[in-house]
């Protein structure tokens, strides 16, 4: 046993330092622990300002004593390496440990211990904790908005059916895998639209807007078999012609009522709301903004100067303005630009506005992927005799999209997080419903519970999305 120098812990007196150090550290943690959980102050005999910093000092000295390199104890080395590299780090570590210990009891008591869960009126919420009764009572409103209670099974059924249809990809056998893209890009959105319009809204199948969708779907499917030389002209002229033919020659006004299901009441979009509206809007905006964005990304890299300038103008315009002004525009300015008798539903206007807005961001992300591809890929595809569309669909885009999965996921996350903004046009999804519930005179004073509830829901959705995108990124990662 050599001489002990307390200012310089060394390996020779390892056990001594270890005992003193861990003892001091444990004492400091116990002090804070007792203080916060049982409001016992074992250093209460000291002046108040001193008793506050005593645990930090004790813990600091303790950590200083056990900071011995290559001690031979694996655990000690691990601790030193991770939380105790130098004085500054030791203090930060201590502070974080103390903050966690200090913050646990109030958070726990607010969330669980003092919270009230039972009952269905405000009277049960007299404690200091959260009033989850409020969430329980308002749950249907937060989920479905003003949608009539008796009809809510329609939303549930549609969502379950769409989730099942959406999971088809996991069960598809090798034989059908090649049709999956077609299914997800065109057929599935179409089915989803039908469900939402026909079932959730309860409207007739054949209405003004559906001609456009039918025309688009038919022309896209047929478009696959058109030689690529004529594809451009085909897509410019045929869908519009088809729409006009459908609208004026095939479906007469009398046929409009035909597609309606008996027993389903019409629920106007103003009554939709809550989390289900968040899902509906995010879903359609995701589906629409992707192809639009892709088109503008290609347009921005096009060889035709006019198309390029138009794409640049579009992208920079939407990226330069805040979404809230875009929604303002769709609410107050857009109707001025349409014929007086032409009415577009508020929800549809919203979806169009958000889709165009996010499409500009998607376009920039995809452009990044296109730029990152080496020229050789383009040249190789061209030398194989591929045309513009064939080259992009089979060679360029699959590689470019693979590269930008994180960017696209971020844009989609931003889109989901932007949906609450539709309060501007008077649609109330979950955050809007919270603000409405908050002002209800029977339930004043529970704003906090509502926001925490919505925050948890959004956090779960967004976190799941980001984790999923990470998995996707790993799955499609290829060595280049």
């Amino acid at each position, binding site marked *: 046993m050599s001489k002990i120098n307390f200012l310089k812990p060394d390996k020779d007196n390892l056990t001594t330092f270890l005992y003193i150090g861990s003892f001091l550290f444990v004492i400091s943690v116990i002090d804070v622990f007792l203080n916060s959980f049982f409001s016992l102050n074992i250093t209460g005999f000291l002046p108040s300002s001193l008793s506050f910093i005593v645990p930090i000092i004790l813990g600091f000295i303790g950590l200083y004593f056990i900071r011995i390199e290559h001690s031979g104890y694996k655990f000690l080395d691990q601790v030193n390496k991770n939380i105790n590299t130098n004085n500054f780090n030791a203090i930060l570590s201590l502070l974080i440990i103390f903050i966690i210990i200090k913050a646990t009891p109030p958070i726990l008591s607010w969330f669980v211990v003092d919270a009230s869960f039972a009952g269905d009126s405000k009277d049960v919420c007299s404690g200091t904790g959260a009033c989850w009764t409020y969430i329980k009572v308002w749950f249907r409103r937060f989920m479905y908005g003003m949608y009539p209670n008796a009809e809510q099974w329609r939303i549930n059924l549609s969502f379950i059916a769409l989730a099942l249809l959406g999971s088809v990809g996991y069960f598809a056998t090798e034989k059908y895998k090649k049709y999956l893209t077609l299914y997800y890009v065109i057929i599935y959105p179409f089915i989803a639209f039908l469900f939402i319009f026909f079932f959730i809204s309860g409207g007739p199948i054949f209405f003004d807007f559906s001609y456009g969708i039918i025309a688009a779907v038919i022309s896209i499917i047929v478009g696959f078999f058109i030689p690529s030389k004529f594809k451009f002209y085909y897509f410019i002229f045929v869908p519009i012609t088809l729409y006009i033919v459908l609208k004026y020659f095939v479906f007469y006004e009398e046929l409009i009522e035909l597609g309606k299901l008996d027993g389903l009441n019409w629920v106007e979009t103003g009554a939709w709301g809550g989390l289900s509206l968040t899902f509906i809007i995010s879903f359609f905006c995701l589906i629409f903004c992707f192809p639009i964005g892709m088109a503008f990304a290609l347009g921005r890299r096009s060889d035709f100067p*006019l198309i390029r300038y138009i794409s640049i103008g579009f992208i920079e315009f939407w990226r*330069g303005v805040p979404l809230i002004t875009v929604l303002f525009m769709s609410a107050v300015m857009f109707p001025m630009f349409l014929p007086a008798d032409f009415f577009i539903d508020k929800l549809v206007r919203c979806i169009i506005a958000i889709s165009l807005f996010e499409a500009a961001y998607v376009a920039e992300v995809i452009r990044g992927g296109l730029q990152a591809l080496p020229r050789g890929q383009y040249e190789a595809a061209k030398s194989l005799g591929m045309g513009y569309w064939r080259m992009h669909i089979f060679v360029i885009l699959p590689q470019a999209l693979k590269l930008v999965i994180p960017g696209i996921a971020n844009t989609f996350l931003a889109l989901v997080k932007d949906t609450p903004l539709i309060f501007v046009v008077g649609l109330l999804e979950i955050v809007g419903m919270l603000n409405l519930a908050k002002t209800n005179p029977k339930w004043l004073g529970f704003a*906090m519970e509502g926001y925490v509830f919505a925050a948890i829901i959004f956090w779960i959705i967004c976190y799941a999305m980001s984790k999923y995108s990470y998995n996707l990124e790993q799955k499609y990662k290829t060595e280049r």
Partner: protein
Amino acid sequence: MDLKLQKIIPQLITVLVVVLVFGFFTYNAQINMENRGIDFGYGFLSQESSFDVQFSLIEYDGSHSYFRAYLVGLLNTILVSVIGIIFATILGVIVGVARLSPNYLINQFAAFYVEFFRNIPLLLQIFFWYFAALRALPLPQDADAILGVFYLTIKGLYVPAFIWENLNVFLYSLIAAIVAIVVIRIHARKVQETQGKQLPVFWIAIGLIFILPLLSFLIGGVSLSFEIPKLKQLATTSFIYEGGVSLPPELIALTLSLALYTATFIAECVRAGIQGVGKGQKEAAASIGLNPNQVLKLVVMPQALRIIIPPTTNQYLNLTKNSSLAAAIAYPDLVLVFAGTALMQTGKAIEIVSITMLTYLSLSISISILMNWYNKKIAIKEK
């Protein structure tokens, strides 16, 4: 010939479609405005606005023009953005560096912060701070002073006001100090390049920036006093603080949530930037005898900044655009004052929405032009 035609026709068709769509819109707009008896024009900007704004940086009341109201909104937007950017940058850099810390607790704490605030919609955060957190603050009469002079109450934050005398002398001395520092830096670089000596520029700079303004107090006749907010009773139960500067709770909630939210993205940019500098760079720098400070200053930071700055500017732009969410909690920013109140009063939807959008557009385009120029300047010049 055929090839040329092939190039021209798609462009012509696209342009035709765009022109047709815009023509269709304009035509309808004309008809609609005629039907409703609205005339198009920006003349209303000089009319009397006759509405009040709660919080304004410049003198404004109902007798001023709509253009003045626009300026009030714009300045409030800029105020929120600037404060938000400052705090977001400070917090973002700290968190970004903390995420790279070897200390397990610290980097997990930072990661938790980033994952937590990034995945909750900004609007929800603004509502949370404004309607839930700040509503839990004490009433003015119950508030305790922070550091003796600040009062954080449900009606806002009251801070002491600075009352300057001969402010311009102080500012001149500050400018002189900055100029002197720049000159000394250039000189120090020259000395180092010619003689290899290193001057303690940092300490000289610190000294200058403190001593010169201090001299202006002692000699230049500058004086500074504080006006501390005092509690005043308006009615039996209604109190208010007088004097000092009061920051409305809307401003606090907005800047707080904008800063907390944007800081997560800035932190990720900073982390990516520092990680993006190769390990070999640091080792090479160390092997030619630079000390750790010099490695950081001369090798790591210049390269990291090149990666950090472009996405960070994007975040600044996002913050500025996100500040328009102020309309949700009635902070009088550009959108609320101009696209909200002014639009309701005049009914000039097209003019007002277009002005608002153009303002944001010119703001972001000018920043991105600046950014592109900067990017080109600092980009690696390969031979």
